[in-house]
Each structure stands twice: as structure tokens, then as C-alpha cells.
């Protein structure tokens, strides 16, 4: 099969049950239609799981590590790896399928994705399950499943260092899980290169279910491009687009940490388990303070001019000696503002533990916030919490909880199942403040005054997702960016239509912007169709009552609350625009056909 320019045409297919390693050739049509990364991932997942209700933690569920179509080329910020699999955390209200859950995709930066392409693959598909802990070693054509017993139980930070010692080459890139993934916490994450995480949707849990501690990759190759000269022109132009812009400067200085302050100012931050949108102490945990007190250095992903990752240390106080990124927007809100923690060093320690255990900080911050509120309201007592005094702002109690959850001990076992489970356990209307969609925790953005933020959460194909997009158009565009492997933050540094032009230069296929946007819609609809087949319906596209019933009491948006009528109207308009049935959310046959999804 002649592959398309710009691709190797091969996905590495590893079956951990049988030990079989296979070079799976990909139909060029799939590259054309689904591009790579998230898009190609969902197509491969769809092909692998031909029926609904497959247990996400069973050997059948493939774990897909997908670089994008731009990964492996020196294009600015094309560094992302999209992890695609069937989610172990999401669940529909009702379904005839026992293990019904959504797809999930989770995106991580660093160097891992490009290295997969350097090794000569357009992705890695891990199927089956090893009977004891293993890691996967890939060095171009040399692929080995190796024993990992001695690493089992190791935190991600220690493992990151120990693994390099084992492999003996600092140029090898790897991703791995921590104790949370090993212990099958449904919202465990995958981490690569010192705390860059594919955080959401329980990718680490699926990896743990396969007894797979890590994947290490080193490569010497690169795909070719169709229009070499044109590609070089676009490369040069793209590099220049980032130079000296205010946005570049802001990313470099504060990373996403700047949002800790402005999101709070505009009332959009998740504060006190989503009760408020403004945190009066946001300045104490924000990027400006971190730059002053903690951060030592800025770090970038592969060929990224933004360097939004920071690295620092806690210099003083009871948490002195902690070395870590410190606050980003999501981590700083979910383990900071959302828990009313204003102690930056303490919060940094909590974030370090979360990463070290391999927990999704967004989900775990949400769960702990929920428990804090339930405890504060007297719905649960100290006994339920195994004696952990989960008062608002108690950072040491939070650290204890992280340990409990990662090891699924006592209250940690219940908390590991997510807020939807806890709300059912606790009852007494606690579901009204359980901030999730389809069982997946909301992220660090509140939606009291922004109905489109609620739309973004409830319509996301992986359950609540803050990066999904606030309209159908944005969502299609996001799906595309995730498929090219370009960072969602950085893609705005490219000029309009640049990504489509680059696709064209790489593949020679003509990419009109219309064609390009259609691919985004196609990817989104295939994901949606997967979820629909599992049994997700309109009743699952809902969000906590809190946002409709409890107006903000402080900040610039004091009094803001969502209006149910308006929300339903907005949702109806959304389904109509999508060509989905507004009662069931089923994508129409016509629309699917127009998108080339006849096989659904």
C-alpha cells in the first residue's frame, strides 16, 4: 500500500497478552479523513471496538498514543501526543450496556509524540494485557517488551530518574504511570518528561490495566513532505509569526499561571467547589507571585517558542525543598482556589504529590472540593473521612487525601470513583454540587455567567472538558488542532489558514479551509457516534444544578446564575446546527453521510 506523503503509513501495534508486535499499515484514506493525533486515534478506536459496552479495563480496549500529522517536523509547537482510548471514568445515566462509557482523548506536550514519529511510526497501539508489569522499549525497528517489576509502585518523579539510569540515554523519551494508574484509579493520568501530563479521562488507569508501566521511544527517522520548498516557506513564516508578540511574552513569563488572576477577576474561576467565580487570594497563588517567589526557569516543549512550563522550588517555610512546576492555571485552581488554599508552597507540594502519584489534578481537585463542601455542610463526618480534617484550605489534609486516593484506601477508594459516585453515596441533594458531566469532573472554569462554558462542558465527547470549544465551530477547529499535534495554546501564533496550507504542503492534497474544517466536524461526529452507540443521550448532556440555582455572591459577576430556559434553547440550537436529533442527540444519517461516515 502506497502511503500518503507526510506519513510513515504505519502504526506500531503491540499486543501485550500474546507478546506479538506488528507493523499495522494504515489505509491512506484514514490519514486523509482523520489527519492524525486525536482524529486518527478515534478512527483506530472505532475500528478496534466494533461493539458497545466493552470494559475499558479489559484487554480488548486499545491504548493509542498518537502524535499528530505535524509531529516530527520542526514546526512551532507541534509537540503534542494525543492519548486515545475508551474512558474508564465516564458513564451514562442509563444504558443497556454494562460497561458503557465515552471515548477519551487526552493531550500531552513534551517530546514524546515527535519521537514516536522519529522512530518511524504514526502512532502506537497497545492492546491486550501483560501478566506482570512490563515496559515497552522502541528504538526504530527494534521493539521489546521488557520486565518492569522493579519499577512498580514508584512515583513518577523517582521513576523518571530511575528509568533514564536503566535506559542509559537521556535522549530516549518516555511516558509512564504512577501508583494511581497501577492501582486503577479511574482518573489516573499518564505523565511524560517530568510532569507533562495526559491528565484527563483516565488514560493512566487504562495503561495500568495493561500492566504497562512505561513506554520508551528513540528514533532516527522522519517522514517526508510532498512539497518541500513550499513547506520550508511555511516553516519560516510560522516561526516568524511568534516573534515578539505580546502573547508570546505573556506565555513565557507566566505560562497559564497568569489566568489564575484574570479568571478570578472576571468571575470565571472554579472557587470553593464551583460555588464562586472569584477568589480573593488569587494573587497569592498566581503566576506573578510564582515568578517572584518560586519559579527559577522556563521550559519549552519540542520546538515551542512559548516555554509555558515553569520549574521552581519552594524556598522557605514548612514545604521548603519542594522542586516542581508550581501553579499552572488548572493545577493552581483545582488544588488552590477551588479548595480555598492560598499557601503557594503548600499548594505546590500538593501538586507535586498529585503528579508523583500520577493523578489527574483536575479530577482529584474537584473530588476533594466536593468532599470539603460535604464535610463543611455536615453531610459527612470525620469518620467517613478516615479522620482527615478536610476543612477548606487545609493543605495537609489534601495531601493525605491524595495518598488515600492514589492507593484506594478507605475514603480514598470511594473518592477514586469520582464525584458522581460520591454524590450517590452521600445523597441528601449533594448531587446539586457534584460538578461533572457524564461522570467526568469539570475543570477549573466556572459557568455561572457563561452559558457557552456550560455548553462546552456538556457537549464534550470525553465528558466535561474545558478545551472542547464554546460552539460547534470551535469544537471542530479544536478537534483539528488536536489532530495535527499542534498545541491548542500555541496554534493562535499561526496565521489564519496556515495549518491547512501546511497540511497541503505535507500531503499535496488540496486543503481548502472548507475541506479542512469538514475534517474537524468528521472527527467530532465519529467521537459522538461512538458515545451514542454506548447509550449516551440528551439526558446525559447536563451539568450540576448549582450553576442554575446558586448565584455568585462575590466579585464582578455577583448575582450571575444560568437560566434553564435559555440553556435549553441554546442546546437545541446547538443540536440543530450539528444535525443531531435534539431529543436523543443522534447524528442524522444525512449528516454522517455528507461527512464520509457512512460506516457508522
Amino acid at each position: 500500500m502506497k502511503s500518503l506523503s507526510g506519513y510513515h503509513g504505519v502504526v506500531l501495534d503491540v499486543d501485550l497478552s500474546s507478546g506479538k508486535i506488528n507493523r499495522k499499515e494504515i489505509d491512506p484514506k484514514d490519514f486523509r479523513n482523520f489527519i492524525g493525533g486525536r482524529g486518527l486515534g478515534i478512527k483506530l478506536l472505532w475500528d478496534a471496538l466494533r461493539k458497545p459496552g466493552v470494559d475499558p479495563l479489559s484487554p480488548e480496549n486499545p491504548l493509542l498514543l498518537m502524535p499528530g500529522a505535524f509531529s516530527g517536523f520542526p514546526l512551532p509547537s507541534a509537540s503534542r501526543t494525543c492519548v486515545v482510548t475508551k474512558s474508564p471514568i465516564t458513564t451514562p445515566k442509563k444504558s443497556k450496556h454494562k460497561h458503557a462509557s465515552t471515548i477519551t482523548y487526552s493531550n500531552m506536550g513534551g517530546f514524546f509524540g515527535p519521537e514516536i514519529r522519529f522512530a518511524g511510526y504514526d502512532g502506537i497501539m497497545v492492546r491486550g494485557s501483560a501478566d506482570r508489569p512490563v515496559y515497552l522499549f522502541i528504538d526504530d525497528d527494534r521493539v521489546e517488551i521488557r520486565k518492569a517489576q522493579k519499577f512498580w509502585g514508584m512515583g513518577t518523579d523517582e521513576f523518571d530518574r530511575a528509568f533514564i539510569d536503566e535506559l542509559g540515554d537521556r535522549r530516549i523519551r518516555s511516558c509512564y504511570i504512577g501508583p494511581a494508574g497501577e492501582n486503577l484509579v479511574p482518573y489516573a493520568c499518564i505523565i511524560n518528561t517530568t510532569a507533562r501530563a495526559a491528565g484527563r479521562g483516565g488514560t493512566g488507569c487504562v495503561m495500568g490495566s495493561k500492566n504497562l508501566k512505561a513506554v520508551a521511544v528513540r528514533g532516527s527517522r522522519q517522514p517526508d513532505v510532498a512539497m518541500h520548498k513550499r513547506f520550508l516557506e511555511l516553516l519560516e513564516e510560522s516561526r516568524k509569526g511568534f516573534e515578539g508578540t505580546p502573547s508570546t511574552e505573556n506565555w513565557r513569563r507566566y505560562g497559564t499561571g497568569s489566568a489564575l488572576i484574570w479568571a478570578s477577576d472576571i468571575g470565571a474561576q472554579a472557587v470553593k467547589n464551583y460555588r464562586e467565580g472569584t477568589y480573593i487570594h488569587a494573587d497569592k497563588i498566581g503566576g506573578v507571585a510564582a515568578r517572584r517567589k518560586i519559579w527559577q526557569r522556563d521550559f519549552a516543549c519540542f520546538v515551542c517558542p512559548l516555554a509555558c512550563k515553569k520549574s521552581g522550588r519552594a524556598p522557605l517555610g514548612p514545604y521548603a525543598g519542594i522542586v516542581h512546576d508550581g501553579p499552572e492555571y488548572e493545577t493552581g485552581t483545582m488544588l488552590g482556589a477551588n479548595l480555598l488554599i492560598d499557601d503557594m508552597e503548600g499548594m505546590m507540594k500538593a501538586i507535586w504529590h498529585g503528579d508523583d502519584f500520577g493523578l489527574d489534578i483536575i479530577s482529584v481537585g474537584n473530588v476533594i472540593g466536593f468532599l470539603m463542601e460535604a464535610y463543611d455542610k455536615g453531610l459527612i463526618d470525620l469518620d467517613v473521612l478516615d479522620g482527615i480534617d478536610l476543612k477548606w484550605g487545609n493543605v495537609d489534609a489534601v495531601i493525605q487525601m491524595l495518598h488515600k486516593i492514589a492507593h484506594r484506601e478507605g475514603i480514598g477508594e470511594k473518592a477514586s470513583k469520582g464525584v458522581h459516585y460520591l454524590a450517590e453515596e452521600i445523597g441528601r441533594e449533594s448531587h446539586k454540587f457534584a460538578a461533572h458531566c457524564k461522570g467526568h469532573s469539570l475543570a477549573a472554569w466556572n459557568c455561572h455567567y457563561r452559558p457557552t462554558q456550560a455548553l462546552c462542558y456538556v457537549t464534550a465527547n470525553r465528558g466535561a472538558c474545558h478545551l472542547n470549544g464554546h460552539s460547534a465551530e470551535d469544537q471542530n477547529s479544536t478537534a483539528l488542532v488536536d489532530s495535527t499535534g499542534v498545541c491548542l495554546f500555541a496554534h493562535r501564533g499561526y496565521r489564519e489558514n496556515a495549518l491547512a496550507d501546511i497540511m497541503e504542503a505535507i500531503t499535496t492534497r488540496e486543503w481548502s479551509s472548507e475541506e479542512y474544517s469538514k475534517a474537524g466536524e468528521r472527527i467530532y461526529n465519529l467521537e459522538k457516534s461512538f458515545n451514542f452507540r454506548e447509550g449516551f443521550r440528551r439526558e446525559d448532556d447536563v451539568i450540576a444544578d448549582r450553576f442554575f440555582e446558586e448565584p455568585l455572591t462575590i466579585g464582578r459577576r455577583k448575582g450571575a446564575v444560568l437560566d434553564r430556559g435559555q440553556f435549553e434553547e441554546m442546546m437545541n440550537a446547538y443540536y440543530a446546527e450539528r444535525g443531531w436529533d435534539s431529543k436523543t442527540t443522534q447524528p442524522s444519517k444525512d449528516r454522517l453521510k455528507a461527512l464520509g461516515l457512512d460506516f457508522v
Partner: protein
Amino acid sequence: MSEQEASFPKLTIRELFHPPLQDRRSFIKMMVIGGLTITVGGVVIPRLRFGVAHAESPQFSMILVDFNKCTGCRTCETVCGQYNHKAVVNGEQLLGLGNPYLSNIRVYSFNPDVDVPIVCVMCRDNPCIEACPVEEDEDGRRALYRDPKTLAIKNDPERCITCGACAEACRTQRVEAIVPNPKTNRPERMCTLCDGDPQCVKYCPYGALDHIVGGYIGGSHYGLPAEKIAKELIERWYGVKLGKGGARG
């Protein structure tokens, strides 16, 4: 080729620090400025250009890394790969696609976060050339020699006996920039200085690399292995000892 050029590789350390008279004043001046502003892993290394290359005689030059500015993005690797491994497309020679595996500069990443770009430091006492056992030809060249135009280290594949002595000298005495090719054992990753316009310096988005023309930091002082540099930086930035038992968490 003038006699001076041909004889450059034979300079002793003593001769190095007593360069020919016409250059000496400017050389000393550069050394003073350099000494004042540059400390290895120091606080600030301004973007300086030392001197101007003379048309008639080649100027020594090197790439200097500011570890404080490096973010580990590896843009340098890709542009090095692009320039030094060009592609021929429809008979036209164009920049390559920038495979970092082909790069002569290499960034090594550590935990806690430190990134150390390693590139040939152009040691004037060139232990790599000294180690080459191949006899000098009529131009005074061994299988490893200095390019007469840029003074960068080059390998003559015709005469190289692939013994690996040059790479071994670099590994044991300097930075392990020059390495043997895993298949042929021929030395590779010698910095070419991109014909006088190093692409890594030009494209580094963070200004972490400088092309120092005429100045010289001293191979044995500046050219340390990545592990050693990282150890010092990690201690200084994070107050942590590298390796086992690091005071983490």
C-alpha cells in the same frame, strides 16, 4: 592556502595565548571583555559579537551556550539538521526537514528541569586531532583536521581508519560532542559553524546561543560534559543534589 592557515592546527597552548602580533591586541581586549561578562552558567551573558572576521585570515569562532536562557526546546537541533543535511529536490539543493537525530548540537534533559545543549566547543588544543593516529599529509592534515575557512573540525572519510580515538578523546577530555557513528565508527557531530553563520544561534527563540568570533573561553574550562554542568545547575537553581537520594518531595 596561506602558511598560517595550514599551520594553525599545530599551534601549541603557549602559541595560542600569544597569537601573532597583528591580532594580539584585539585578542587580549576580547579576553578581558569576555572574562568580565562570561561565567560558565553565570548570571548574564549579553549577546556579544567579539571582533570581526578578517577576510584574509580565518578567525577562531565558537558557539557559546547560556544555560540560564535555554528552555530545552531543541529548535537548535532541528535547524542544525536542516542546514547540515540538505535535501536534493528535483535537482535543487534545499534545506532538509530538520531531523534532530542528524544534528551536531544536542540537548540533554535532566530531572529536576535542566537542559544542557552540547556542541563542539572548538578547543584550540584540539584533543580530537591530537588523538588521530593517521599520519599528516603534505598539508599537515590528519584524518581529522581544521577547515581552513572556518577552523571547524572536519573528518576526511578517505583517510579515516575509523579507530574512534578522536571521539574517545572528546569523551574523556571534553564534552562528548564528537561521537563515533554507531554503524561506521566514523566520527560525527563536529560543529560546522554552518559556513560562518551558525543556524542554531540564528534561530534560537530564547537567545540562549551566541556565535563568538575571535573570542575564546578555553575548551578545558568551558567544555564540560552535560552531566557535570547539569549537576551544578541543579544544585544552584533548585538546591538539590543530582542522583540518588535527592532531597525531593
